[in-house]
């Protein structure tokens, strides 16, 4: 399959456990953040987003936490399943009113059976 990145940090999690993937962002002016999932051989897939006026947002089995004080974003996946194995990366917009984003390099999540 396609490799989206060499030497990515890897998180190995037992099936059924919760996963936490972290991301440090760089721009204090960023006001919108997205988490993407990218499976081998596929394009990135939107998982969840959050605006800077929130500190937590929940989706189906996923939660994103935003800590603006330390410029940190995390993605929590509950009851991790084999289908969650992928590379996950965050994106921040480069300030409001822009189409431009800064993308992280990603973390590889491996789900162990």
């Amino acid at each position, binding site marked *: 399959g*396609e*490799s*989206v*990145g*060499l*030497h990515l940090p890897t998180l190995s999690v037992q099936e059924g456990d919760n996963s936490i993937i972290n991301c440090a962002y760089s721009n204090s002016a960023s006001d*919108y953040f*997205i988490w993407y999932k990218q499976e081998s*051989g*596929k*394009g*990135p*897939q*939107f998982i969840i*987003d959050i*605006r800077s006026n929130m500190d937590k947002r929940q989706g189906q089995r996923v939660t994103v936490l935003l800590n603006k004080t330390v410029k940190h974003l995390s993605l929590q996946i509950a009851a991790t399943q084999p289908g969650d194995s992928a590379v996950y*990366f965050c*994106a921040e*917009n480069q300030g*409001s*009113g*822009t*189409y*431009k*984003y*800064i*993308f*992280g*390099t*990603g973390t590889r999540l491996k789900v162990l059976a």
Partner: protein
Amino acid sequence: DVKVTQSSRYLVKRTGEKVFLECVQDMDHENMFWYRQDPGLGLRLIYFSYDVKMKEKGDIPEGYSVSREKKERFSLILESASTNQTSMYLCASSFAGFNTEAFFGQGTRLTVV
């Protein structure tokens, strides 16, 4: 389901060739984007378009041009391919405005020899 289709999964081209990468979306999205993805680097924006015949440079436009003659189609052109343009190219589309969910194609892995 939104579909963003890139014309080729794999391409091998020679240095100096003019290369066309095609992208078609079927959701009547106003915005379309071209990114490249390289190991160890996050996605980087090459060009984007927010309307037919409109285009804006992204973060790394040098050596590339784009064409958007129809709303559903966004083409990336490598005027004279070079080996440093060997990369995974990803097309994306989204509805009008900023901070709207982007849907990605499956990617084109281009090798320039």
